[in-house]
Each structure stands twice: as C-alpha cells, then as structure tokens.
C-alpha cells in the first residue's frame, strides 16, 4: 500500500483570452490527507485536452501508478464475479447476470435506450471492461473510509461510454454490498416536469412529486435489504396526524413517500440526509452515483406561476442532491458522470468539466478526480467487433472481411456510440 499523500491541484480556466488548460490532471489518489488547493496558477506547459500530448499525458501518469495489464486476446465473455477471486481483465467482455438487472438497474437506463434494446436482443448484458472503469474500481477497492468521500467525475465526448462505465461501477459496488444511491439522469429532474408544488417544508422551494416517487420506488427495489437495517435518528412530522418516530426503519420513510405522493420529495430529502449521516458509523458503505450531474448547476426549463424560469436551487430534489455530492461525509465514495446530451443550453461540442459544470458547479465539486473516457483503442475496437461477430450481430457478409472492419473503423472513428449505431443495421 502506498502511504504517500497527494495534494490535488485544481486549476481553473483563465479569463479565456487565450487557449489554456481547463483543468490540470489531478494526481491519482491513494490517501488524501490534506485537500489544500494550491494557488491557482496556470501552467501553460501542461495541456490536458488541448494538444495531442494531453490524454496520453494522463494515461502515462496512470501507468506510473498502477501496473499495466497486458490486454489478452479476445475470447468468449467470461462471467467474472467482481466480488469473487476472479480479477477483471482489460479488453474482456464482462457479463452481468440477467437476474441482477432489475435490482441493480432498477431505475433503468433512460439515457441509453440502445443498450436496453441490445440487452433485450442478445438476452445478455455485456460490458466491455475498459481502462477508466478498471482504474475507478481499483481505487474504490482501496478507499479509506475514514477520509472524506472522494468524488470521481467521468467526462468525455459524446458516445465514449461514460454512462456504461458508471453502470459497471454501480454493479461492482452492488456486488460488494454497498448501498447505492443511483440517479440515472439528473437532467430529467430539471426539464419537462408536471405537477410542481410549493414545498411545505420551505416555501421558497418546489416539490416534484412524480419524479420523487418514481425514484423512491426504484431505490426501494435496489436496496431492499438495507431499508430495514438502517434506523432513522430523528422524528419527522409529516403533518398534524402522521409522523415517523426516531428509531423506525428507513423503509417506513420510503413507504410514506410512496403512499403520500405530496411528501415524496421530502421523503427523498430525509433518506439522503439519514444515509449521509449514518454512513460515517461504518454500518454500510455508501456509493452516490449520479449521471448528468451538470444538470444540478445548469439551467432549468421549468417555470414558476408567474411564468419566469426557475433556478435549479429552487427545486428541493436538486437541493438535496447537491448536499449529497458534497464531500463533508465519509464512509463511501461519489462517482459522477457528465453529459451534454440531455443538458439544457449547453453547446453541442462541450464535454470538459469546466464547460459543462460552469463556475458554480466546478466550485461545488472542487476538488474531484477527473476520469477521461475516450474512444476505443485499436485493441478495444477489435474486441468489440469480435463480440459482435460471436453473437452474429454483424450479418452483412462484407462486415466479416478486413475491408469491412477498416471501413467501420473509419466511419465510426472508434467511437463506441457510433460503432454501435453502425453495426445495428449491418
């Protein structure tokens, strides 16, 4: 075990008058003793994404820390159980047992309908084990639960696999019996919501009964076994007649939220607060996984009664989630994924944390560990094509030839999302 502590250097983009590094690659964390941000100096020599040395620079840095796995030749996807002794190797397809799907992914994957279709067609849920996810899993394995929760942010261009890497991490943690708080798409909470109510708890904020109750339902399915074990530490008065006493299991709060839809948002807030305060006790490990986290600090398209646009902090759900992703608790980890696809009022080509989170979001999440998810490497691309061929998904006779593979590489530019769309009709 490496006992050296690191300081995170969080650099900012400057005034924007000249191109510069957006965010210096934060060094890999093993033990964080002091999270003291250095003085915000710009290092013009270090470009993270601006030049060709950028991503390789980060990759080289990773290699220094962790012994490199030699990619094995592709073979039939192995049913690697992350909790067991079998280690996950890079460039292998890792199959999630189908019976785990309803519990682990109780929320479904609203952002990624193509993967849901693929699972239905192949009758198996396979994920390619890739370097970003593998590194994340190794770090989660070695987390020190006495230290504040480390925040990992998955970012990358569209279609590179941030959501599926997040799913991989969630399944890994669920197998290890962590309590997973999974928000599949935070963008759905800031747009097209019907039935907004003024919150009873705080008149300034708004409740979202529909979204809150559907989230509570999936949370209940995913974490059934914890709901009876965890006891709440305060008494909560729902109204004059109903209340939940101290010492009752958390399941009762969830039930209250599900039966009385008006109190659903408050129930979500209570659940998150209780989990946060009790994770320090060590009874369970908490993983907070949010996809599309830039929605929490972006803009909304929801309107108040006087038809003016709301700010996200006026939504009670967003407020409680923001408190959850702070690092003022310990006993777990926070894994976040950015997403431009569902975001509001962000440019299409934006993918960097500074661009998507904005100043407010970056400040709130600072310091975090950025994890770049990029396009397939040649080995990964080859492995993906092999997987499709083994499942007879590529039916076109020319797709089996070298010419066809070269053309697929050219057309998709090794982007996982594009490759999947291309192979769907070939």
């Amino acid at each position, binding site marked *: 075990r490496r006992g050296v502590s690191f300081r995170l250097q969080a650099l900012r983009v400057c005034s924007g008058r000249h191109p510069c590094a957006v965010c210096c690659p934060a060094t890999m964390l093993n033990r964080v003793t002091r999270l003291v941000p250095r003085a915000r100096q710009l290092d013009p020599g270090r470009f993270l994404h601006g030049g060709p040395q950028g991503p390789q620079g980060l990759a080289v840095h990773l290699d220094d820390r962790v012994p490199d796995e030699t990619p094995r030749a592709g073979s039939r996807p192995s049913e690697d159980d992350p909790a067991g002794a079998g280690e996950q190797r890079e460039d292998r397809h890792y199959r999630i047992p189908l019976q785990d799907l309803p519990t682990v992914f109780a929320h479904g994957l609203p952002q990624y309908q193509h993967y849901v279709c693929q699972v239905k067609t192949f*009758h198996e849920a396979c994920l390619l084990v890739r370097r970003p996810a593998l590194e994340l899993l190794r770090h989660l394995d070695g987390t020190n639960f006495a230290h504040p929760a480390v925040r990992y942010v998955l970012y990358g261009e569209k279609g590179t696999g941030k959501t599926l890497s997040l799913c991989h991490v969630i399944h890994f943690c669920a197998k290890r019996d962590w309590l997973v708080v999974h928000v599949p798409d935070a963008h759905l909470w800031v747009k097209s919501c019907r039935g907004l109510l003024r919150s009873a708890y705080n008149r300034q904020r708004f409740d979202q009964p529909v979204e809150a109750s559907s989230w509570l339902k999936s949370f209940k399915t995913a974490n059934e076994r914890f709901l009876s074990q965890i006891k709440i530490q305060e008494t909560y008065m729902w109204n004059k007649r109903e209340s939940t006493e101290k010492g009752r299991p958390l399941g009762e709060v969830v039930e209250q939220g599900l039966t009385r839809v008006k109190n659903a948002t408050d129930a979500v807030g209570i659940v998150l607060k209780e989990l946060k305060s009790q994770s320090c006790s060590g009874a369970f490990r908490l993983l907070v996984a949010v996809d599309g986290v830039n929605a929490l600090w972006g803009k909304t398209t929801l309107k108040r009664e006087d038809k003016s646009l709301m700010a996200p902090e006026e939504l009670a759900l967003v407020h409680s989630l923001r408190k959850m992703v702070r690092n003022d608790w310990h006993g777990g980890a926070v894994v976040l994924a950015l997403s431009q696809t569902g975001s509001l009022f962000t440019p299409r080509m934006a993918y960097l944390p500074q661009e998507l989170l904005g100043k407010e979001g970056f400040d709130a999440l600072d310091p975090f560990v950025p994890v770049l998810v990029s396009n397939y490497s040649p080995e990964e691309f080859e492995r993906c094509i092999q997987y499709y061929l083994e499942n007879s998904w590529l*039916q*076109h*006779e*020319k*797709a089996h*030839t070298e010419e*066809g593979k070269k053309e697929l590489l050219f057309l998709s530019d090794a982007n996982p999302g594009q490759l999947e769309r291309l192979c*769907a*009709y070939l």
Partner: protein
Amino acid sequence: MQCRTDLGLCVAFPPSPVTRSGTQKAAFVGSSWPAKMAAPAGKVARGWSVLALTLRTAVPRLPGLTQVRWSRYSPEYRDPQTDKEYYRKPLAELTEEEKCEQELRKTQLIKAAPAAKTSSVFEDPVISKFINMMMKGGNKVLARSLMTQTLEAVKRKQFEKYHAASAEEQATIERNPYTIFHQALKNCEPVIGLVPILRGGHFYQVPVPLPARRRRFLAMKWMLTECREKKHRRTLMPEKLSHELLEAFHNQGPVIKKKHDMHKMAEANRALAHYRWW
C-alpha cells in the same frame, strides 16, 4: 412503327419539335410507359450548341422519330468506376482487355459520380434505389435513416424469433436483413403486366411481358404505397416497412396479393394479347 427506345426516341403524333430551350416534350397524348421507358440518363439539356454537337453526331435522323430525353453528357463519356477492387488488381493479373480499358480511362472523359454513390463495401444499388424512392422533398438524410432503422428492426425481430425457436428451427431462420430485403422484393416482382393500348378510340388493358427494371420498380412502388397509405397513421415507417418486408419474404401479405391480382387480370385479358406489336 418501331420505337427505338434505347436512343431515347419515341413515336410522335404529330412529331413535336424540340424548342430552343431544349425542354422535354411528351410525345404521346396520354403517353404510356413504353414511350417513357427509354434512355438511361434523362436530363434537360441547356445549350443549343451542346445539342447540335452531340445530337447530330450520335443519333441518326429517322423520319417520325424525335429525341425526348437528353443527357448533359455526350456518348463518349464513360461511367465512373467506384469499385476499389478494380484498382487494386496488380498489373500481372489483368487481361488484355482490362489493360486496354485502363489505358483508355487515362484519356477518356468520365461522368461525375452522383452524390449518393460511394466506394463503400457496404453499398447496395437496390437499397440506394429504394431510399431514393422513399425520399420526399429531397430529404435524403431522413430517407436513409428510415431505411437503416427498418433494417435494424428486421434484424431485431429475426433475432427474437431465433432465440425463441428450437435448435432445428434456428437453422431455417434468416437473420441477414439484406437477404430478407432482396428476397422480399424479388418475391413481389410481377412477371407479366398490363398496358393500356389505344385501339379504335378505346383503351384496352393488354398483358405484356415486363422488362427487369419495370418489375423492380413496381415491386418497390407497391411496397411503399402499401406502407404509406394502408396502415394506421400513427405507426412509424420503419415498423410498417419491416413488417411488410418480413411478410413478403414469406410470400404472404398485401403486396404479394397485389402481384397475384395483377397476374390474374393479365390471365383474364389474354385474348387481347395480339394488340401488342412489340
């Protein structure tokens, strides 16, 4: 009177002169498809001088016959060769003919390739033609995406059937959407067609053997008409089209029925077959 269709000529009643602007004139009153089933590239010419140079040299002046379809290119223009394999053949493997052709290509004029023609290995002329027929208002992007979604839908449906079937049946289930598409259209092609021919002031539906491209066109046209008009308005095109293609692949469905109706009518009118003069 014979109709030299390969030169883009037709019988004219009365012979209609080509105007200075070179616009196309329909030579027949109520012109039927035999007059129209002519020249491969029918484009409107612009420029009297081009006409004068190309037309006079290429086409012999026959009495009663008028050029109705024009091409921007003169006959010495050759079609573009987009096949990569053709260019990759090493010199030793080429026959004398091919060597001669390659020499000629260096100096001869070549037509511009259309925008939709690529050197991709996955390109299929039948699919391209179908996409063009599905296109509305020049929206090729939409038409192409509908086609790819249809192929995907066909593939997924076949995979569902494959997984649900037993081991013996799995060998018979075809999962390649391209084979299904080609076979379905082949099954929909009519063998014999009806043509309205004017005799004694009346139009008679005369059974006539159809050339290959007319049959392919009719198959595609019937498929698209069936999907566009006869289905519920809220269903999406990929869904409708995938369903129709799968039915036609198994020789069932409304398009096959239309083909059989056409055959039956031709059979019923076989007494009029002698009205055909070609």
